[in-house]
Every structure is written in C-alpha cells, then in structure tokens.
C-alpha cells in the first residue's frame, strides 16, 4: 500500500484512539461532584485543556511501555511491527470507548498492557511476554488503589480536624469552601493539561513512526480535537458517574484530588506505572469511609471492569491482529 494511504489510515486511527482516551478521562469528575462548575462549563474547560495540552506538551512526551513487555524478534519471526502497534492501540481504543459508554473509568495503561499480552501470547507464545515485568507492574496495580485510599483517608481526617478547630459556622464554611473551590479548579486544570499532553503521545506516536513529512502541529491539533470530542461526547458519562459516587464538596474534592495528583507525580518521577483512574476511585472510597458518607451503587461494576480490562483487551487484540496485518 502507498505510504500516503498508510499515513491517512494511521491518522484516522490516531484520532479514534485519542477519542477513546478522551472519552475515559475522569480528571474533571471532582469538579462535577463538588458542583464547583456545571457539566457544560466542565466540558468546555476539558476540551480547551485537551487541545492546549496536546498542542503544547504532546510532542515532548513519549511512552515505551510496550518495549518492556513484548519479547518479540520482529525481523527473525517476520512480524509486521506496525500491525502489532496498530492492533494494540485499536484494541485499547475500543476497550476505552466501550467502558466510557458504560460510564466506567478504567486504566488506559491496563487496556494497553492487556492488548500487548494478547499479542505477545499469539505471536511468541509464553515466551513472547516479559512476565517478570508484568509481575512487577501488577504489584503497583494492586498498590495504586491502596495508596489512593490510605492517603485520602488520612488527608480527610486531618482536614476534618482543621475544620472542627477553625470553622465555627456556615459563614466560615462558605469562606473556606470557596477558597478550596479555586484551588481544586487550578489543580484539576493543571492535571488535565499535563494528562492531555501525556495521552496525546499514545495516539500521535504511531503516525510519527510511519512518515517523515508529517505536519506535527496539525497532527497534534487533530489529536487534541480527538481528545476534546472524546471528553465531550462520552467523557461526560464517566465524569457524571464518578463525580456522583460519593458526596463531594470543594474541600473534600481537594482531599481527593491533591493526593491523587501528588501520588501520580511521584509515580511518574519514579517511573512507577500507577493508574490515575484507580487512584481516583480508591480516593473516593477513602473519602467515603473517612467522612462516613455512603458510596453510591456502582463501585462493584467499576472493580469488575478493572478485572475484565486485561482479558477483554487481550482477546480483542488477538481478533484484530489478522485483519490489520493483512491491511498494512
């Protein structure tokens, strides 16, 4: 197939992938839950930061999680590397879009790794996958929710102590909550901005890999638009679902968002693959326990979809590999 057509196909798929990633972006959920902004304002903000993050940060960020897990000798085995990358990304996008349509946040890293495992097993058998890396990562997958729960639980307890000491009435409360609402808004905007840049690299990487004469700026804008449309079309379901899981106020949204962002930052610096979605959901559970507010039904659905992410992504990548290999 001519290179131009391949680039166009990759471009379309890249936009679909960015749509899928945007659709499962739950970053803005605390803003909705604490009613700092309404859903319309949230979606506008999410779209702006998705495009800005993709455009300004997308180019510099690169991910190579697949390299550590797949143990395939492409040349010796005659495997089409482009088809492998494409299959993993498409299966990830499908899993993300499906879970977003159900309003359930999942880890995009888990979906990607599920796809990688599926293809590794298909193309290299048991030796196609680096199981020790998977084992190392799985420790962190289990640790992510525990860390999120514990840190938020502690922060909420500390915050409540502070409130009992210093907030004496509704007026004090309003003043304090108002301040928190601005802090949460700023933190979430920064998170959305950096996350867009980070997510964008997943979608852009495949196109950059196939051609040299590509207008990167245009590509980043298109990917940013993909992320933005993902958030506005399907992401609203995830945001609403997660935002309403437990009772949130600006101060408690702060207690959820700040530890999540801090732990994610430490994880990124230490190169630990933590899941933002898992951290956020676990933080909401931690908040619910610390402040004795009930959790809405649906937590078990989220946990079930987390467990199903790997097998579904793996099976999907196995099914999709052959037609994609024929096409490319």
């Amino acid at each position, binding site marked *: 197939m001519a290179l131009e057509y391949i680039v166009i196909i990759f471009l379309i798929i890249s936009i679909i992938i960015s749509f899928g990633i945007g659709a499962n972006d739950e970053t803005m959920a605390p803003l909705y839950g604490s009613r700092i902004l*309404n859903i319309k304002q949230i979606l506008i903000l999410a779209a702006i930061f998705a495009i800005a993050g993709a455009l300004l940060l997308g180019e510099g960020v690169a991910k190579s999680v697949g390299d550590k897990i797949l143990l395939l000798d492409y040349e010796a085995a005659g495997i089409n590397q482009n088809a492998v990358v494409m299959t993993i990304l498409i299966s990830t996008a499908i899993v993300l879009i499906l879970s977003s349509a159900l309003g359930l946040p999942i880890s995009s890293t888990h979906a990607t790794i599920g796809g990688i495992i599926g293809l590794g097993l298909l193309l290299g058998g048991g030796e196609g996958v680096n199981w020790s890396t998977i084992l190392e990562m799985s420790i962190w997958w289990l640790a992510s929710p525990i860390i999120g729960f514990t840190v938020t639980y502690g922060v909420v307890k500390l915050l409540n102590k502070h409130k*009992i000491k210093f*907030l004496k*009435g509704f007026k004090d409360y309003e003043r304090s909550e108002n301040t928190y609402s601005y802090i949460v808004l700023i933190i979430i905007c920064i998170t959305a901005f950096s996350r867009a840049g980070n997510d964008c690299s997943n979608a852009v990487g495949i196109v950059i890999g196939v051609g040299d004469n590509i207008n990167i700026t245009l590509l980043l804008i298109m990917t940013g638009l993909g992320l933005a449309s993902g958030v506005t079309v399907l992401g609203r379901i995830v945001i609403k679902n997660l935002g309403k899981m437990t009772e949130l106020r600006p101060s408690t949204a702060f207690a959820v968002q700040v530890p999540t962002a801090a732990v994610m930052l430490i994880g990124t610096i230490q190169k630990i693959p933590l899941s933002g979605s898992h951290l956020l959901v676990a933080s909401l559970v931690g908040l619910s326990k610390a402040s004795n507010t009930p959790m809405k039904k649906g937590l078990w659905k989220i946990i079930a979809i987390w467990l199903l992410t790997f097998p579904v992504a793996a099976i999907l990548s196995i099914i999709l590999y052959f037609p994609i290999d024929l096409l490319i």
Partner: protein
Amino acid sequence: MKLLKEKKNELDEINKEFLAETLNGSALLHEALSTFINDKLKKESLEGIIKTEKKCDELKDKYTQVLFRDKRALPFLVEDRYNILMMIDSVNDKMEFFSRFLEVYPFKLYKEIKDDFKKLCSACSQAVEELVNCAILIETDFDAAYKKTFEIEERKREARTAKFILLGKLYKMKDDPIKVYLTSKLVTYIYEIVSWVEETSDYLRGLIIKYPSK
C-alpha cells in the same frame, strides 16, 4: 469573588428579614393566646399573624430566586439553606393556620384548663423564638446552635406533657361534645407548631453534625 459577596450579602439581608418576621409572628401569636386565655381575644393579633405569614411567603420567594440565581455560587450550601428556609416557613404556615382556626373558634376557654393551656402556649412561643435564634447562630457558632437544639427539644417535651394533660382533662368533661372536640383541636394545633419547630431543630442539628464541627 465579587459576585459571591454580593449574593451572600443579599441572602443575608433577606434571611434576617424573614427570621425577624417569623419572630414577629410568634410574638403576635403569644399576644393573641394571652388575650384568648383572659377571654378577651385580640383579633388584630390574629390578623397580624396572617399578614406576617404572607410577608414571609414573599421573602421566601425572593430568597429562593437569589439562592438559585447563579447556580455556581455557594453550591454546597444551596440545598441545605433552601431546606432550612422551607422548614421555618412551615412554622409560619402552621401559626397562620392556627390563627385562622382561633378566629372562628366560637367558645371561651374552659376555666379548668387555663393553667395548662398557658403552659402549652408558653412552650410554643419559646420554641419558635429559640428556633429563630438557632437559625441565626448556625451562621457563626455551631456549638451554641447545637446546644440550642436541645433546648428546643426540652420545649417540645414540656408541650407534649401539657398537651396530654389538657386532652386528659378535656376527654373527661361532660359538656357539649362540639366544644370539647374543637378545644381538643385547638390544643393539637398548638402542639403541632411546637412539634414542627422541634423537627426543624433536629434538621439543623443534623447539619451541624454533617459539616465537621463535632
């Protein structure tokens, strides 16, 4: 920030006026009941209660308009504030209903029950007064408002005791059954005001506990 401050000040002003009117209604009710016990019912006081309730309704509408005007500002207290206002407004409604009933009540109060009736009326006006104070205190002092809710509970207990003593005496009377029935209604309607005041104070107590303060 400016928007929030303006809205807050506007809400404060309307709320103050609303609570002052409620207190005025309670004072008028006390006056009306005192004159009723002395067999010289002052109908102007009853008219005053009805006017007060109407004024409270207008203020309630105004408050609701301002509260929901800009949905973003103060979102975490909007529902709670709205509920407080609606519950206190129901106190006004009950006072107004009682006034209309007393206006058409065609008898004089039995001498045998006047003392207990006085106790019931006193518990009622005190409870309303304490509720208004509690609603003011919750803005600046959770601890004092919390204590106030227990005082209101005490008023309800007093009113309940008085109510059953009154009903006991009334049911033993061998008089015109219509007078006995209507007098028992009079007692029940006053008690309902106190009972609702206590329910409102329970809600306020719940809020104080809900927002970390205890």
